[in-house]
């Protein structure tokens, strides 16, 4: 046994199965039975559900009701759309349905009464939905300024058409508000079941709709007014351009030549506003510290001026062989690198030196500097050796100083 739900689901499944055909028919306006993506089975299924209607022998269009639904969902802009066209007709149904419901109640036809209440509720919902859709559509047109049409004349005609449509909707809303429908529903006890939907769906929303409609009409009228001004502005600009072309030597007058300079000439020159942080303001110090720590350290490039040599006396004689003795720190460094354990255990450069009395003359600070310098040279002998600074926190976070307490040397 099939239920109405099943029919709806079945229909939606048919649409989903042939979605490519439905989309093609909607976008192209029609679909050819022999072309892509149509299939004989699909055409047959969709025709059975009256989704497709014949256009010619081999071509089909989407049913108008479904195409309209897609237009609404996709907010597709139409030319001279009959916005809110059936609002007045839908509103005219309501008093008739109220009359019939009251009669059915008085005559004791309970089943008929239920039917009229359902029909009234549906009619109210239908009407509310139509008004809402119409207002949304008009709002979209007002916001996009009739983007689908190009020429000024077209825009003006479209604008005038939609102003007329908005006025018709306004009339329908006015008659709905002043037609005494609510009084009838409230005065007739038999019409009591109709009141909740009427109040909730229509009556309560009428002020908001009227306000929205007024707003839209205002935008459309303002736009129409501006459109009427735009045409002469365009003409003037073209005329001025032509004048400039025909008078290549034309130079606009200097401001001194104008006896009464217009307002636009008094446009103020830019005033640059530059602010600096107040370093003594405690409330900003945290933010400044954050900025300071993110600043990349400036690279220190030590440029040593080349030493200018002097020729010693007697250089024309046979050259002597000079044996350059390595300096104590060089010897110490070589030894330290050689003695760094292979298991990766770090060695404190300072402790290492202090343990060896022969380097007692080498000051700690100079020694650490030598070790760090060795690290920057990236020599082959230190290829597998890593130097890590042990730092003390600086006296002030913004000083920029790095205080090195020790250097850990380890093999990797």
């Amino acid at each position, binding site marked *: 046994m099939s239920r109405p739900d099943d029919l709806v689901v079945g229909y939606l499944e048919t649409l989903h199965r042939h979605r490519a055909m439905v989309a093609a028919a909607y976008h192209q306006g029609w679909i050819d039975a022999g072309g892509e993506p149509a299939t004989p089975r699909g055409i047959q299924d969709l025709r059975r559900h009256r989704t497709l209607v014949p256009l010619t022998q081999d071509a089909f269009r989407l049913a108008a009701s479904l195409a309209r639904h897609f237009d609404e969902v996709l907010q597709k802009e139409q030319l001279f759309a009959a916005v809110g066209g059936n609002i007045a007709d839908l509103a005219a149904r309501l008093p008739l349905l109220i009359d019939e419901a009251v009669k059915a109640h008085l005559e004791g036809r309970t089943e008929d009464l239920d039917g009229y209440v359902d029909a009234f509720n549906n009619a109210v919902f239908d009407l509310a939905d139509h008004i809402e859709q119409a207002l949304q559509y008009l709002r979209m047109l007002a916001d996009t*300024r009739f983007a689908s049409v190009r020429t000024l004349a077209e825009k003006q005609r479209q604008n005038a058409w939609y102003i007329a449509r908005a006025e018709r909707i306004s009339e329908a809303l006015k008659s709905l508000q002043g037609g005494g429908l609510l009084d009838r529903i409230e005065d007739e006890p038999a019409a009591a079941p109709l009141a909740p939907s009427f109040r909730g769906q229509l009556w309560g929303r009428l002020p908001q709709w009227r306000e929205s409609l007024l707003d839209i009409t205002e935008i459309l009228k303002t736009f129409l007014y501006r*459109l009427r001004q*735009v045409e002469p502005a365009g003409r003037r*600009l073209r005329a001025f351009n032509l004048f400039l072309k025909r008078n290549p030597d034309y130079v606009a*007058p200097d401001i001194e030549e104008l006896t009464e300079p217009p307002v636009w*000439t008094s*446009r*103020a020159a830019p*005033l640059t506003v530059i602010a600096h942080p107040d370093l003594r303001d405690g409330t900003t110090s945290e933010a400044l510290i954050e900025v300071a720590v993110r600043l990349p350290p400036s690279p220190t490039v030590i440029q040593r001026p080349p030493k200018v040599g002097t020729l010693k006396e007697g250089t024309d004689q046979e050259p002597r062989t000079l044996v350059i003795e390595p300096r104590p720190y060089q010897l110490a460094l070589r030894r330290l690198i050689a003695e760094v354990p292979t298991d990766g255990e770090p060695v404190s450069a300072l402790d290492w030196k202090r343990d060896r009395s022969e380097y007692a003359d080498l000051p700690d600070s100079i020694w650490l500097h030598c070790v760090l310098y060795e690290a920057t040279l990236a020599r082959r002998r230190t290829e597998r050796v890593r130097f890590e600074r042990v730092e003390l926190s600086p006296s002030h976070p913004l000083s920029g100083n790095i205080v090195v307490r020790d250097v850990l040397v380890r093999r990797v």
Partner: protein
Amino acid sequence: MFEQTVTLLLSGEFICSVRYPDAWRFLTEEAQRKDVDAFLGRLGRRLVSTRQGGAWFAAYQQIGAQERRAMREVFADIKHNLRLLVGFFVHVMQALRQDQFLAPGSIIEANRLMAAIDENPNLRGELQALSGLGKGPTGDGTLRGTLERLLKKLRDDGYLVLANPEREIYEVTGKIEYLQEVVDFLMAHQSIPDEVEEETDTEVRQETLL
């Protein structure tokens, strides 16, 4: 929003719904406008809108010698760019077959504009002529490059905003109304007739050949 709006106005920007929608919305409230105007007043400036009401800018409250000097500089800049600006916007109107003035919010699709210029020898010639009016490097010499350079200049000058970078869609800002006011004034001042007969094709062609 007060701070941003005032900063924009002081830095010489035109506030319109296209370029600075938030500041524009802020200025739609009369009380806030009064507030901004009072603040500007203390700096010798006032809040002024274009005649059509599509853009706000800061103007001098009183014109002294110093202000006159600054006004001269602003005006000199307008004079310098006038031919290029007027020529460009009329060129766009012709290419896109739009008979109306490009009001704030009007759309310029770079690809559509390029296609229209490409298929019309007059428009191609006009574009080349326009590129000669601008300062700076001439670019790669192609029509596309020339158009892009012009669009960029108009963007930098605040007449256009790039609304959709992917599709290269530009939107005209409220500053165009300022240009229109300048044009209207100069036309009235020079008694240039409003109704100039349209340029004939022959005239355009001859000019292009020249």
